[in-house]
């Protein structure tokens, strides 16, 4: 530690800290544009010039390390003079267009100009004219306002891991942009909007729609992945105008993924309904709550009376809040049915009895960046949990050995020590690493571990998992979708155990952990307690049929991994209640009543993230029209069905009931079991994932997100050699058959897909008619 003085205040500072860091911690304001605590130091704007005793010239506070006895003056005449002069230079080429600039009112430059600027410009010459590049659907540009702080450039390079924006040319001819016309495609791209200290990069969807002084910022939590990013919704009147990150160092730092930021726009979809709707013989009718809820309750009652409770079930979306999931399972169980499930993207439930209380990361999110070694099994972490990918990237750049075993090679934006592509023989590849790990540990091979040839790559992965301080084996989303999830999980845990590494799960839904703890699984109640009635998982319900179904915040035609089977089960059911904000054509087809709930940000709730952190939030704005918080709808349904325990008056009452779940931890101990993996014989193997902007109904309806390059179209992605193999070379459309379903899909030749496989994404309308996820497909001419 060193002792310094800033403006006469004695401060203790860390060795090597920059003056600006020490000042920030002490709450002493130093103006700046290019400095940002999460980015490298560029020291190119010169706005933070300060006076240092015994130094002739003013020094940039962001690039001046503290030294013992240093005396800094941030407001002395010399410092102020330097800051004023810098500002005058920065304003030379800056347009005086604040009244039509979206940054107006929250602009660092505008504020500095008020604080340090002169009231009359001495600059009478012509200003620089710059063209504005089109960077895509999310970022609007006005590059004439750019002051070349290069925060956006450094963000791409250092944080997003995709160096897309750069500073080309030099001196007065410097331009920030992509140089060759191109969009900015990083999944974290819109953070540059927050970073830009002027109005050069602004939010395209929010453009010209509001002024910061009209907005009220209210906190919220993002439900689109298991991170639980903290955000701030800016509200004007009753409308959400935009979403910004809320700084939370241990979760999302200062960032937000584009998905978290722009998903709210899905709420403006034309399919959104704001009044309950009932299907009568004459067609769909908007109605009032009383008749709709009575209609729903009567329908469910009829099923109960005629077919008994075993024919009643509930499917819960994995973005639903803990309270909603809890009340849904409570209702089902009060009616005598254990048929409740939220794992709609999974097909393999063989090991559900042995699982921990909830899918747990096995560590804190912030610990990811301190990993020295990691093996991710079935994960495209960068697109699935962008902010966790960003953490892992930091670990990799620090020298961490990050390895993947994936069904196909994904492009990562950090150094990957090994990526084993295991399209057909995933279980064997993981078994090979397990064998290598056990050999290194000198442990016995447990009964039933599949035979596998151990190669150099497997040994290298096992060795990396044994060296260094912090290591982890993480099970990703692709493993969750796979029919051999049980085997993959058991072997992942075995590898972790024998290497002394953490075992963790990257849950596939935004509130998977919360849904488990709330009891939205057929075999466990709230807080992982045993249940009186063992229910059926969603897949058994879909395959064996149920007569009455309650859907909570899910669209099975897109969310379920077996969309065709799911919609058929819904159509065959006698009565379907959909609590969903959107009335899609599919929902109008299978549902009998649609009850519009408040969307996230419109109602209070709680989400549990992958580290087991409970985050409660209030609604930021009232829901539109007649839409009501889903927990209230469930509560009234409970009353109408004479269920016991539905007297809650506020969401706090629901939370009080959940208190036992709060205390439940996950030990992540997965006992060994003898695997019996399914085999895939013959035919072409379908590889599947949910593309980043197809994960839930809100994201799928966010127009700007759907215009990005990451919005992956429903198509067959296949290597040329595979097409030739099945005599379809050169075809631009093919008929794909999987299970009982088939679809006509465009072909996109992609040599990154392993030969003998096709990649067909889930979660899209085009692929909704297919019979499953991972599995064998047949292809013929269109």
């Amino acid at each position, binding site marked *: 530690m060193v002792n310094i003085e800033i403006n006469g205040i004695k401060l203790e500072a860390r060795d090597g800290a920059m003056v600006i860091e020490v000042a920030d911690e002490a709450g002493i304001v130093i103006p700046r544009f290019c400095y940002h605590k999460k980015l490298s130091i560029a020291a190119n704007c010169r706005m933070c010039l300060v006076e240092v005793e015994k130094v002739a010239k003013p020094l940039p506070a962001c690039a001046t390390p503290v030294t013992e006895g240093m005396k800094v003056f941030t407001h002395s005449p010399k410092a102020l003079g330097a800051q004023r002069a810098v500002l005058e230079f920065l304003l030379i080429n800056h347009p005086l267009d604040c009244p039509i600039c979206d940054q107006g009112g929250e602009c660092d430059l505008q504020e500095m100009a008020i604080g340090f600027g002169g009231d009359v410009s001495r600059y009478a010459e012509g200003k620089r004219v710059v063209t504005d590049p089109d960077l895509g659907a999310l970022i609007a540009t006005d590059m004439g306002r750019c002051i070349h702080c290069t925060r956006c450039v450094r963000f791409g390079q250092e944080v997003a891991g*995709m*160096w*897309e*924006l*750069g*500073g*080309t*040319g*030099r001196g007065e001819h410097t331009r920030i942009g*992509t*140089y*060759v016309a*191109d969009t900015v*495609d990083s999944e974290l791209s819109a953070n540059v909007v927050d970073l830009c200290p002027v109005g050069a990069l602004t939010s395209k969807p929010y453009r010209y729609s509001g002024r910061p002084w009209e907005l009220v910022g209210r906190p919220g939590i993002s439900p689109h992945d298991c991170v639980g990013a903290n955000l701030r919704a800016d509200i004007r009147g009753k409308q959400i105008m935009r979403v910004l990150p809320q700084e939370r160092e241990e979760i999302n730092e200062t960032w937000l993924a584009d998905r978290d930021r722009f998903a709210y726009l899905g709420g403006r979809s034309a399919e959104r309904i704001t009044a309950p709707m009932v299907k009568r013989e004459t067609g769909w009718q908007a109605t009032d709550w009383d008749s709709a809820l009575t209609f729903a309750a009567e329908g469910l009652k009829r099923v109960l009376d005629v077919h008994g409770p075993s024919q009643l079930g509930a499917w819960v979306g994995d973005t639903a809040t803990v309270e909603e999931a809890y009340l849904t399972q409570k209702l089902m169980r009060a009616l005598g049915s254990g048929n409740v499930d939220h794992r709609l993207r999974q097909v393999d439930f063989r090991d559900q009895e042995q699982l921990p209380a909830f899918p747990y990361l096995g560590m804190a999110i912030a610990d990811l960046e301190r990993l020295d070694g990691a093996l991710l099994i079935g994960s495209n972490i960068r697109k699935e949990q962008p902010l966790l990918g960003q953490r892992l990237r930091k670990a990799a750049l620090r020298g961490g050995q990050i390895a993947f075993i994936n069904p196909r090679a994904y*492009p990562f934006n950090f150094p990957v020590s090994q990526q084993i592509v295991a399209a057909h023989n995933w279980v064997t590849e993981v078994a090979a690493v397990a064998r290598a790990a056990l050999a290194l540990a000198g442990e016995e091979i447990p009964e039933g571990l599949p035979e596998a040839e151990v190669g150099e790559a497997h040994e290298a992965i096992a060795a990396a998992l044994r060296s260094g301080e912090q290591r982890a084996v993480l099970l990703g989303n692709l493993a969750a979708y796979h029919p051999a999830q049980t085997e993959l999980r058991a072997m992942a845990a075995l590898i972790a155990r024998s290497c002394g590494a953490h075992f963790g799960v990257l849950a596939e839904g935004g509130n998977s952990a919360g849904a488990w703890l709330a009891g939205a699984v057929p075999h466990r109640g709230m807080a992982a307690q045993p249940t009186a009635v063992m229910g059926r998982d969603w897949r058994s319900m879909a395959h064996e049929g149920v007569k009455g179904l309650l859907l909570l915040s899910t669209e099975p035609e897109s969310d379920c991994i077996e969309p065709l089977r799911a919609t058929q089960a819904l159509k065959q059911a006698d009565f379907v209640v959909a609590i969903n904000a959107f009335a899609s054509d599919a929902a109008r087809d299978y549902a009998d009543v649609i009850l519009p709930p408040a969307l996230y940000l419109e109602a209070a709730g709680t989400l549990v993230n992958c580290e087991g952190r409970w985050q409660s939030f209030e609604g930021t704005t009232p829901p539109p029209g007649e839409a009501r918080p889903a927990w209230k709808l469930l509560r009234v349904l409970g009353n109408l069905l004479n269920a016991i325990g539905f007297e809650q008056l506020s969401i706090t009452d629901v939370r009080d009931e959940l208190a036992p779940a709060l205390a439940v931890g996950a030990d992540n101990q997965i006992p060994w079991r003898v695997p019996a993996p399914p085999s895939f014989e013959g035919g072409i193997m379908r590889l599947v994932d949910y593309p980043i902007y197809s994960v839930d109904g809100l994201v799928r309806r966010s127009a700007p997100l759907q215009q990005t390059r990451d919005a992956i179209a429903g198509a067959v992605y296949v290597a040329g050699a595979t097409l030739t193999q099945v005599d379809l070379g050169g075809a631009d459309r093919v008929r794909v058959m999987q299970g009982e379903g088939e679809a006509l899909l465009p072909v996109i030749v992609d040599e990154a897909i392993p030969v003998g496989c096709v990649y067909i994404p889930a979660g899209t309308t085009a692929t909704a008619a297919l019979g499953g996820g991972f599995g064998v497909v047949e292809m013929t001419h269109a």
Partner: protein
Amino acid sequence: MKQARGNIDLITPESCAEIDRWISNYPADQKQSAVMAALRILQDQNGGWLSHELMDAIAAYLDMPPIAVYEVATFYSMYRLEPCGRHKINVCTNISCLLCGSEEVVAHLQERLGIKLGETTADGKFTLSEVECLGACVGAPMMQVNRDYHERLTPETIDAILDSLQ
């Protein structure tokens, strides 16, 4: 994906060999240090200028993001990013040359070649450019023709230099 759009087949085997020699001067994990040499080599290979495709090829060859190559190529005036004549004439108009008469040099060159600064003659022989200080103030006014410096210029010496070029 963005990282990989360049086509390294645009680099001739001779250029590859030359770039590889430069790469070998640097630590194995820092081959991007050869970017300036690579840009020069490909500029020569391409008749004096660099296309986007060639810069992308360098990016792919040196395993760096294309934008990083563009940043370097646009920063230095020695790299030309548009087609140019067989002979590149760079006239210094910075302070020392200005004081010693670079304005007359520019005027004479423009009149003699019939083009303005930044233009190329119709026969594709000469491209005339204005550059900042080339570090030859002692011989001001000066110009650089291709890789040669010519100092203490007068209309007569300029004519002689131009006449000597094919």
